[in-house]
C-alpha cells in the first residue's frame, strides 16, 4: 500500500496579532508513492509543524495538503504517525499495544474470521520482525527506549498504512540502537511499500534513510532546498564513508548553518572575545 502527498502553498501561523508566529510559509512539495523523504533543518524551522499538518493533527492557515489527490481533513487511518516518545499505552502489554487499532471502529469493517486470523498473523509477524518476541507480554515501562520505539513502529504499521509519518523517532536512542533501527525502517519501507516522511535533526540519519532530503529554514519556517540522495536504493552502513555521502553531508550542514543564523552568533562570539581580550590587556597594564 502506498500513496502520494501533495503540499500546495501551505501556510501555518500560530497565535494572533503581535503574538503571531509564522511557523510555515508557502510550502510546496510533491511526495511520490513509496518515496522515503527526510526533513532536516535548524530547530524551530517548522519540521514538526509540517509533519503534523500532513498527519492532520494541525490545521493549515492557508493552502492544501492532498493524499492521492484527495484533500485531507483531520487525521486518518491512511497516515500513521510515530512520535518521539510517550505515545505507548502503559496499561497495555506490547502485544496489546500493537493490536490497539483492532479495537477501533475504523478497523472493524474487516471482521470476517479470516481477516481476524490474518490480523493476528500480522501482529505476530510484526512482533517477530521488530525482535519483540521475548517481551511480547511485557509492559512498556519494562522496556528500554529502543524497544519502546520498536513497539510504536509496529503499532503504526499494524493497519498497513500507506503513509508513515515519523517525528525524530530515534532522537532519544544511542548510536548503536539507532543504526539497527535505521536498517529496520529501511527494510519496512521496502517490504511494505509505504511512503515515509521522516523528520530528524541528524543529517547523517537523513542521508542514510532518505531518497530525497527536504531542508527547511527558520524565521519564517520554510522549505529551503531539496536534495536527491546519490546513493543506490539498497543501503549499507559503510556507505556513510563514501565520498558522495560525505560531500552531501558537508553541503547540507553548511546550508543549515547558513540558514540557522549560527554564523552571526559566531561573529558575535568573536567580537565578544576581542572585547574581553582588550579588557584583559587593559588590566594587565
Amino acid at each position, binding site marked *: 500500500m502506498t500513496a502520494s502527498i501533495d503540499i500546495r502553498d501551505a501556510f501555518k501561523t500560530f497565535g494572533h496579532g503581535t503574538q503571531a508566529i509564522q511557523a510555515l510559509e508557502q510550502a510546496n512539495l510533491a511526495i511520490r508513492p513509496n518515496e522515503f523523504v527526510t526533513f532536516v533543518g535548524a530547530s524551530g524551522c517548522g519540521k514538526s509543524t509540517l509533519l503534523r499538518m500532513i498527519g492532520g493533527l494541525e490545521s493549515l492557515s492557508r493552502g492544501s495538503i492532498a493524499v492521492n489527490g484527495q484533500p485531507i481533513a483531520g*487525521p486518518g*487511518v491512511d497516515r500513521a504517525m510515530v512520535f518521539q516518545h510517550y505515545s505507548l499505552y*502503559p*496499561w497495555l502489554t506490547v502485544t496489546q499495544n500493537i493490536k490497539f487499532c483492532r479495537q*477501533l471502529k475504523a478497523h472493524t469493517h474487516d471482521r470476517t474470521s479470516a481477516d481476524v486470523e490474518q490480523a493476528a498473523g500480522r501482529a505476530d509477524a510484526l512482533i517477530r520482525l521488530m525482535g519483540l518476541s521475548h517481551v511480547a507480554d511485557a509492559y512498556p*515501562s519494562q522496556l528500554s527506549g529502543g524497544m519502546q520505539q520498536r513497539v510504536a513502529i509496529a503499532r503504526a504499521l499494524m493497519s498497513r498504512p500507506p503513509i508513515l509519518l515519523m517525528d525524530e523517532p530515534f532522537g532519544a536512542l544511542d548510536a548503536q540502537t539507532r543504526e539497527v533501527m535505521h536498517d529496520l525502517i529501511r527494510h519496512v519501507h521496502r517490504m511494505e511499500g509505504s511512503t515515509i516522511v521522516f523528520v530528524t535533526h541528524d543529517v547523517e540519519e537523513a542521508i542514510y534513510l532518505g531518497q530525497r532530503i527536504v531542508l527547511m529554514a527558520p524565521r519564517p519556517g520554510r522549505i529551503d532546498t531539496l536534495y536527491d540522495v546519490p546513493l543506490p536504493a539498497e543501503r549499507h552502513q559503510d556507505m556513510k564513508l563514501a565520498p558522495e555521502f560525505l560531500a552531501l553531508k558537508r553541503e547540507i550542514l553548511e546550508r543549515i548553518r547558513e540558514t540557522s543564523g549560527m554564523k552571526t552568533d559566531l561573529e558575535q562570539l568573536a567580537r565578544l572575545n576581542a572585547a574581553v581580550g582588550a579588557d584583559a590587556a587593559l588590566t594587565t597594564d
Partner: protein
Amino acid sequence: MSASKRAGGGGSSLWQIRSAIDPRQYWLLALFGLVAPLVAWLVASQLDGTDKVFLPGPADVLARIWSWATDDDLAADVAISTWRVVAGWALSAAIALPLGLFIGSYRAVQALLEPLTDFVRYMPAVAFIPLVMLWVGIEEGSKVAIIFIGTFFQMVLMVAEDVRRVPLAQIEAAQTMGATRSEILEKVIVPSAKPALLDTLRVTMGWAWTYLVVAELVASNSGLGYAVLKAQRFLQTDKIFAGILLIGLIGLLIDQGFRLVHRKAFPYLAGRHR
C-alpha cells in the same frame, strides 16, 4: 572504605533520594513512627501536675473506648458516620468524575465551568450549614450534603487535572489510528488517567472524613463527630481523644484499602509501588 561511599548515587544508604529500602526496615520505621508519639503521649500524661481533663492518658482513652463500645453503642456511631462520609464522597465522585472528564477534555467546558468551580471551592463548607438546613432540612441528607459540599468542588478540579495530564502523544497516536472522539475518551483518556483518578478518590476520601465533625454539627444525635462535639460540652477530654483517634484509625484503614486496590489494579506501575 569511606572514600568508596558516594554522596548522591550508588551504595545502599537509607538516605539515598527515592531509592528503595528493605521492606523490613520500612515496616520497622513505620511502626516506630506510630509508636513514638504514643510513648511521648504516655510520658506526658504521667508527668506530675498533668491534669486528666487537660491531657488524659492512653489508658483513660482506651477505657473510654471500651465503655463507649459496651454501654454507648460505639458500633452504631461508627456505622452512621462511615455511612455519611461514604455517601457524601460517593455522591461527589459520581458527579465529579464525568464532569471532570469533560472539563479536562474540552476547552469549552473548561472555560464554562472551571472558574466557577475554582470560586466556589474557596467558600467554607461550615458557612453552608444554615443554607443546607434551609434547603435540605435536618435529616440525614443534610449531613451528606455538607460532606458533598466539602469535597465535590476540589474533586472536580483534581479530576480535570488528572485528565489533562494524559500525554497528548497518547491521544494523538489514537487519532492517527482513526479513533473517534468517544473511542479516545473510553480507550485512551480514561484508562490512562485511571491510576491518578484512584489517587484523587483516595485523597478526597480523607478530606471527606475531615468534614465529618462539621457535618454532624447539623442537628445530629449520633455519629463519631457528634460524640466529639457532645463530649466537648461536658469537658470529657478522654472521649474527645477517643473520637478523634477512631476517626483517624478508620481513615487509615480506608486509605490502606485504596492503596491495596491501586497495587492490584495497576500492576504495570510496579516501579511506583515501592
